[in-house]
């Protein structure tokens, strides 16, 4: 069920270099799963901006977003108490029910955003965070606050393990006491592809990104080809099971 409504910005702060957190107050009843997204109308821009949901409760929804263009830049400048028109409850989100315990949760860059809401609902898990550099890391304390193990990798080695998320994953997989059978991931496609290769034999769910027109399945602007035929990232995704992805 998709819902359109007005929401009031209660907080809009920088949490790392180029990364902001916006909390909006309003009707969140259409949000049913981590990994879903909202589509935001912004003055002066024709298309709405799809932003993944970081977390939500009965009265508010929290978004983490990276400033990458006109839309997100405009968002970062909005003062609190601004009213925004949102479509909520978009996309399928992650399916967590009935999945194996203690999964791997792997986020690259701003792709980490929806994984916070996921980790909160999954409970016990191991989180691998990949970032270009230390200054762009965010939400590490928030994840640790959930009592989960957090492994950090940076491309330049400015924090944690130097390298990609797969470099953070390798020691975990070598450790005989761990026996991961499932993963959830969101991040750049090359990262998710490397992860899927490294996690051969594991099942998992990936959250994809694609340039969208409407965000609710009408325009066919974000269709990808999958093992099961054409799928709209906005409506049939953004979360897909590992085995349906055509690399």
């Amino acid at each position, binding site marked *: 069920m998709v819902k*359109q409504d007005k929401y009031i910005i209660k907080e809009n702060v920088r949490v790392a270099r180029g990364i902001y957190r916006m909390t909006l107050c309003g009707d969140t009843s259409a949000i049913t799963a981590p990994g879903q997204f909202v589509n935001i*109308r912004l003055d002066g821009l024709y*298309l709405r901006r799809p932003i993944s949901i970081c977390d939500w409760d009965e009265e508010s929804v929290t978004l983490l977003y990276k400033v990458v263009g006109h839309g997100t830049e405009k968002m970062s400048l909005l003062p609190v108490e601004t009213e925004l028109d949102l479509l909520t409850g978009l996309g399928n989100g992650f399916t967590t029910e009935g999945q194996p315990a203690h999964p791997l949760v792997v986020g690259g860059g701003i792709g980490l955003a929806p994984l916070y809401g996921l980790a909160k609902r999954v409970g016990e898990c191991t989180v691998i965070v990949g970032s270009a550099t230390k200054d762009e890391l965010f939400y590490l304390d928030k994840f640790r606050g959930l009592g989960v193990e957090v492994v950090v990798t940076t491309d330049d080695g400015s924090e944690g393990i130097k390298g990609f998320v797969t470099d953070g994953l390798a020691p975990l997989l070598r450790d005989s006491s761990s026996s991961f059978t499932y993963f959830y991931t969101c991040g750049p496609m090359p990262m998710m592809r490397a992860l899927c290769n490294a996690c051969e034999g594991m099942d998992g769910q990936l959250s994809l990104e*694609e340039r969208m*027109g409407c965000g609710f399945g009408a325009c066919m*602007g974000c*269709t990808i080809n999958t093992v099961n035929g054409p799928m709209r990232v906005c409506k049939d995704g953004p979360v897909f099971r590992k085995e349906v992805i055509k690399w």
Partner: protein
Amino acid sequence: MVNLTVRLAGVALQNPVIPASGTFGFGGEFLDFYDPDILGAISLKGTTREPRFGNPTPRIAECSEGLINSVGLQNPGIDQVTGNEIPYLRTFYHQPIIANISGFSVDEYTDCCSKVDSLADIIEVNVSCPNVHNGGMSFGTDPKCAAEVTEAVKKVTTKPVFIKLTPNVTDIVSVARACEDAGADGLTLINTLLGMRIDIKRRQPVIANKMGGFSGPAIFPVAVRMVYQVANACKIPVMGCGGVSTAEDVIEMMMAGATAVQVGAANLVEPMACKNIIEELPEVMGKLGINDINDIIGVCKEM
């Protein structure tokens, strides 16, 4: 009470507002927003003989007051549309259905039209596709080709046939007249304008297919001009389309000569667009002293 009902080539519509093909899917995506039974009609997603994946992504580029799309006629094929999509739409929707048909050969157009004939109230023929038997030139850019499709389709259907014209021509009136002479019952115009955006950081086109169809409020004046020219040159009814976003736009398009009006891009950014327009029409008409919407069709005549 104002009168919003119009007759479009013999088909009664409760109001002149119709979601345009490609912006409304097969109707189901809008059930979360409003009851589609309030619409004048629905123009379905463009359909070809075979299923089509369409173009690679990115397929969408934002523009000032509009967007470019290169979806590339992604659709499940005519058999899926007649077997599943239209029957599903009919479980919750009881107003006229406009089937939108595309083809890459005259054969493909006639196959699709004959298959959908019994399920549609109006057949809208998109002649903006490249003709594979004519060097890939779009059917709609050549009056002779457009007439050939019109004539062939008219032979296989009992329903009113509207030809949807491309604006990417030097003289849209000559294409419109050729379709009318070939037996078209009406015309829909305009389809999207060919456009392009370049990502100045990557120095490459935004869209994978490089170019695409430009739509949205930015093209409204072009659409009004072409509807005006065609409505003045032809006797058959026109569905006006292109950038319509408000009740005032609907009235302007009808004054230019449209009997009904299609709403396209607006559905994508404001899913309630058609409902809002239908609800606002009586008030806007009241302010303008219009009691019957039929009174304004083509009132802005050439002197």
